[in-house]
């Protein structure tokens, strides 16, 4: 029983991480039709920014952790907004080219990170509490999972609030549903694009810092390896659906944990199998827009 609890909670923790990356991907795709391959690099850059700050401030304190989380978010948001403004905007409505540009950006940025920080993983330091465990119903749960879950919940609530209560949020919600009608109401959707990219980048940057604590290290490959799972989650949840991304993140992560434990490390394969099943039964994903 305690094993089940442990698997569930660690699954939720991993799911939180997936959600942080997938939420941005889903929104960006939903509103703009762009598949952002560079999203992984937003994450990696956020992670490195957080690490550099922690390195200078002394990694063991909570203040440092909070500061690095914030910095990761800000860096992610800025880089994402810049990407949209400088690269994506020029290719308005040319979806394939937009994807290609993000591919090129991903290649170039990972290589750049390799050059600046080297290809080997760099170990991070964190407040000692994170590496300790808390006992819940007999299971010893590593504390960093709680941080992840907490952060993801805050981000989810934050994005939902933004979408519900702000004008930009209104425009984005309408735009995800019917972009041309929004334009026909006299609204310049392109401003919303930058905002959506920035939100996605912030979530990814935050996820990057958290990922570095979850895995225990930063490396240029960090974003790329998570990005693939984020893609799978986004497809399963339904492109463009924030709720779908949330549900799918949790489902995929928990499946992975259980499969790894009970089925001998086949977590990754089970996820792909789940993807195949979803594709067969419901190609647009759990909560996706009908094609």
């Amino acid at each position, binding site marked *: 029983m305690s094993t089940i609890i442990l698997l569930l909670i660690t699954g939720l923790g991993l799911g939180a991480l997936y959600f942080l990356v997938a939420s941005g991907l889903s929104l960006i795709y939903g509103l703009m039709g762009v598949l952002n391959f560079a999203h992984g690099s937003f994450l990696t850059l956020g992670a490195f920014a957080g690490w550099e700050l922690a390195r200078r401030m002394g990694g063991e304190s909570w203040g440092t952790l909070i500061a690095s989380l914030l910095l990761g978010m800000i860096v992610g948001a800025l880089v994402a907004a810049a990407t949209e403004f400088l690269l994506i905007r020029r290719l308005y409505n040319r979806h394939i080219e937009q994807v290609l540009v993000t591919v090129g950006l991903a290649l170039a940025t990972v290589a750049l990170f390799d050059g600046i920080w080297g290809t080997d993983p760099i170990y991070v330091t964190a407040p000692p509490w994170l590496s300790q465990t808390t006992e819940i119903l007999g299971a010893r749960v590593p504390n960093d999972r709680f941080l992840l879950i907490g952060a993801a919940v805050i981000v989810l609530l934050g994005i939902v609030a933004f979408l519900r209560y702000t004008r930009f949020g209104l425009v984005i*919600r*309408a735009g995800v549903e*019917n972009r041309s*009608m929004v334009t026909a109401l006299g*609204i*310049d959707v392109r401003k919303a694009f930058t905002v959506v990219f920035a939100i996605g980048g912030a979530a990814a940057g935050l996820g990057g810092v958290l990922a570095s604590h979850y895995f225990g290290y930063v490396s240029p490959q960090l974003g790329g390896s998570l990005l693939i799972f984020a893609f799978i989650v986004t497809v399963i949840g339904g492109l463009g659906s924030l709720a779908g991304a949330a549900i799918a993140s949790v489902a995929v992560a928990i499946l992975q944990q259980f499969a790894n434990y009970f089925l001998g490390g086949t977590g990754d394969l089970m996820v792909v199998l789940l993807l195949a099943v979803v594709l067969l039964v419901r190609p647009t994903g759990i909560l996706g827009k009908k094609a």
Partner: protein
Amino acid sequence: MTEPSTPIVTESILTVSDLNASIDGQQVVESVSFEMLPVGVTALLGRNGVGKTSTLRAILGLIERSGEVSIAGERVDREPTHRIVQRGVGYVPEDREVFASLTVAENLRLAERDASPNRELIAELFPDLTDRAGQLAGTLSGGQQQMVSLARALVNDNRVLLVDEPTKGLAPLIVMDVARALERAAQTVPVLLVEQNLQVVRMLAKKAIVLEGGRVVYDGSAEELLGNEALTKELLGVA
């Protein structure tokens, strides 16, 4: 129907000249030219699939097009859609296109462009919507959605309204409600109306433009057209 006092206008409110449009490489509008009446309702008629909706969408720049479009004497065809709309164009699309995942109030709020939206006018014309302000637009009936779509176009002080088949798929009683709302709207704003329901056209339109094969084949008085049974049958297929 009493004529409201008309301001003296020197240029047409909406002029289209040699408009060509295509969707996915297929030409749907060919060399269409016409001028809207500065006051009242101008009807854009024709059989199914003849290019009426495409003409409206082409005016707004929602589909690929070439040619001249002028609003109040100023050329707008080089501008992106949202700029054209900001000049004072209200659009009521075919199939309503309300945002199903937004509430009625949010649909209207989204459409608000200037500092003083016509909230009282909307409340007066569409009392039902005020009651349903918090309801998700996707759960409304067809007629109610049509009201939302109309209200969206009336919430601003627009200079022209482009209305596409507002009575499509609606029960006769609702059709009358919509027609009356349009009539009211047309008292202050000129309307370009695409409509299949000739009864509504008879009630509202002063001028009629008929399209066939993507081109203009009639441009003149609505009353004369609809009064001539043979002509109506020939151009529109139905009486």
